[in-house]
């Protein structure tokens, strides 16, 4: 019996039917969300072979399913489901892929030739999908994707008896899937031994989650998330607490604006949408959890005017405080941000960057980036979260972080970031809706994509890696290894970026430290942008001591 949930209970209209085109969008969203988590799911594999890479296999299966329907205008949901199932069958890979294709096969068969599906149809289709899947094996093993699928189908059947709202049913299905995935280690000892949940089951939960995100108007693709996060660094806005969100209003001034199309898009993003206007000026108003989404969308259509973003939770609190009379229903208490993040940094600018990205506690590493286990432990305990991820951001700190995590009574994981840029990449990869293990896997993958460069002064004369350096000279390190030296910052920076293969990457970021002025940093950025015109160059005030510049390429 699932009681708690972190799915916000916001008011919205019930959705009673779904047709072929809605189903098509659900599959698209499921695929996109699954692709985002492909690597993390692969990381859950217990056996070196048997299923191989579950994440990849499930993505390939879903891609084949999607390919079959992506150009289809079919509105009949039974028919498009059958086409999709056929695609899944043709492209099925690995155990999980085959089982998934069987689930879709049964699901589609149940829908038959129906134009649309309602609550009861959905529940029946889920049951049929599970039944078909179970038929394909002699000795079904519990604690796998089969178990999760069955839990989901059972929940769908139960809830379909209580409500007609398809979105609510899907929400309950997602919760049931997550619970079932959490239980898999108790059913399959080998999972418990490896300390993971079942990969196939997790994949199925992700598929359902992707569909739910689409229904809630939340983004599922990689680029959309990243854009939002980069905005966060410059504007300092953080996503609102689950439950109320932000009241967003703005005007879009442009040419040939399609008011109806804008209204449709905005309506999918949140609650209480209001879009009025004419082709040259449109007024938009909507309640969302992440204000970046409607604002970025509006900015892509024209120029924005009179942008107003208000925290509705604050508005509600003020309203409650000013009101007399009978008690009003209290808003649900916002849950502590799970998992909480502890980041080790040096410099106020960097501390600010990490905080704006969601770090709950900052530990200052000092000149030598060497905080004590005690300091780390205090930071962990200071957070209200029950689960915590620590970002050491330096090779020296990893051990202390691990010791602190062992001492804490909370559930703590250390993502082994070796530099500030790695820590930032890891933080950007954080997904508030995923559990701790999934986040650790995703964040650990993210740090592999980042190469870190540091420019500093040599404290002694030495020859390493064929590079000779005299004390006091400027040196460039790439991923902690001495690679280049030079007389000027510009020279070292350019040599270092060449070493780091900057031309193969997309974004170059400069974090400038103590003793470097904003003008100097921007001048250097200009120089870099000239030599690497295809890459985006960003400048951030890090304020770090010791290293005039930290560079990252990703």
């Amino acid at each position, binding site marked *: 019996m699932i009681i708690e949930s972190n799915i916000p209970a916001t008011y919205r209209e019930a959705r009673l039917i779904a047709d072929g085109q809605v189903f098509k969008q659900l599959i698209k969203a499921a695929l996109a969300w699954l692709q985002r988590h492909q690597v993390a799911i692969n990381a859950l594999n217990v056996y070196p072979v048997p299923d191989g890479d579950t994440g990849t296999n499930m993505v390939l299966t879903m891609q084949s399913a999607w390919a079959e329907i992506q150009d289809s205008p079919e509105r009949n949901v039974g028919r498009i489901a059958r086409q999709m199932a056929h695609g899944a069958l043709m492209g099925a*890979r690995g155990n999980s892929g085959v089982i998934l294709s069987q689930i879709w096969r049964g699901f589609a*068969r149940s829908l038959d030739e129906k134009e649309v599906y309602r609550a009861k149809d959905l529940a029946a289709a889920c049951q049929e999908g599970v039944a078909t899947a179970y038929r394909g094996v002699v000795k079904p093993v519990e604690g796998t994707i089969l178990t999760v699928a069955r839990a989901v189908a059972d929940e769908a059947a139960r809830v379909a008896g209580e409500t007609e709202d398809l979105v609510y049913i899907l929400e309950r299905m997602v919760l049931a899937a997550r619970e079932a995935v959490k239980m898999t280690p108790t059913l399959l000892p080998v999972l418990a031994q490896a300390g993971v949940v079942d990969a196939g089951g997790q994949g199925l939960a992700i598929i359902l989650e992707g569909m739910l995100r689409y229904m809630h108007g939340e983004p599922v693709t990689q680029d959309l998330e990243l854009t939002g996060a980069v905005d966060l660094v410059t504007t300092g806005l953080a996503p609102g607490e689950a439950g109320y969100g932000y009241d967003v209003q703005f005007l879009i001034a442009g040419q040939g604006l399609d008011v109806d199309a804008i209204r449709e898009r905005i309506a999918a993003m949140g609650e209480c949408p209001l879009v009025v206007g004419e082709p040259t000026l449109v007024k938009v108003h909507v309640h969302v959890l992440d204000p970046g989404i409607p604002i970025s969308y509006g900015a892509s259509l024209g120029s924005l005017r009179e942008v107003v973003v208000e925290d509705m939770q604050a508005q509600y609190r003020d309203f409650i405080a000013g009101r007399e009379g009978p008690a009003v229903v209290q808003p649900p208490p916002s849950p502590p941000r799970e998992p909480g993040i502890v980041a080790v940094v040096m410099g106020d600018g960097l501390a600010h960057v990490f905080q704006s990205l969601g770090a709950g506690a900052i530990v200052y590493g000092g000149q030598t980036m060497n905080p004590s286990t005690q300091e780390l432990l205090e930071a962990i305990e200071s957070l209200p979260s029950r689960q915590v991820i620590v970002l050491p951001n330096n090779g020296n700190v990893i051990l202390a972080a691990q010791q602190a995590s062992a001492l804490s009574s909370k559930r703590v994981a250390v993502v082994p970031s070796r530099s500030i840029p790695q820590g930032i990449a890891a933080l950007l990869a954080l997904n508030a809706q995923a559990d701790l293990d999934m986040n650790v896997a995703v964040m650990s993958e993210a740090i592999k994509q980042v190469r870190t460069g540091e420019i500093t002064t040599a404290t002694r004369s030495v020859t390493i890696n064929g590079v000779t350096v005299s004390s006091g000279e400027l040196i460039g390190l790439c991923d902690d290894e001495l690679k280049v030296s030079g007389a000027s910052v510009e020279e070292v920076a350019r040599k270092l970026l060449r070493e780091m293969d900057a031309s193969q990457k997309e974004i170059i970021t400069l974090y400038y430290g103590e003793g470097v002025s904003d003008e100097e940093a921007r001048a250097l950025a200009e120089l870099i942008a000239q030599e690497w015109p295809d890459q985006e160059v960003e400048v951030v005030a890090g304020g770090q001591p010791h290293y005039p510049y930290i560079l990252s390429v990703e």
Partner: protein
Amino acid sequence: MPEKKSSLGRIEVSLAAIASIAQQAVLSCYGVVGTSDKSLASGIVGALSKEHKRGIDVHIKDGQIFIDVYVIIEYGTRIVAVAQSVMNVVKFSVERALGVPVAEVNVHVEGLRVSSVD
């Protein structure tokens, strides 16, 4: 039969034992709904051996293990994917149990089972 020499003596594993391991592995694969004790290729002689009744044939050649698996697969699944899974699982299970490499796992799909609903 594969042998391992230890300082105390020899460890011999019979073909039947290997076939047992393989059979357990095969039946645990998704999509396999049975093993077939009929092999069209080997005729009457093959049908008399006990291992063959299980739907598994094991040969040793030049100290390497070759396994032939005869299976019935559920209609409606992607046969190639199921067969590949069988190959991987059998190879993995036998190698893990014996510590001896498996050179080949050949999957023979003897039939498809159509469930009553289709």
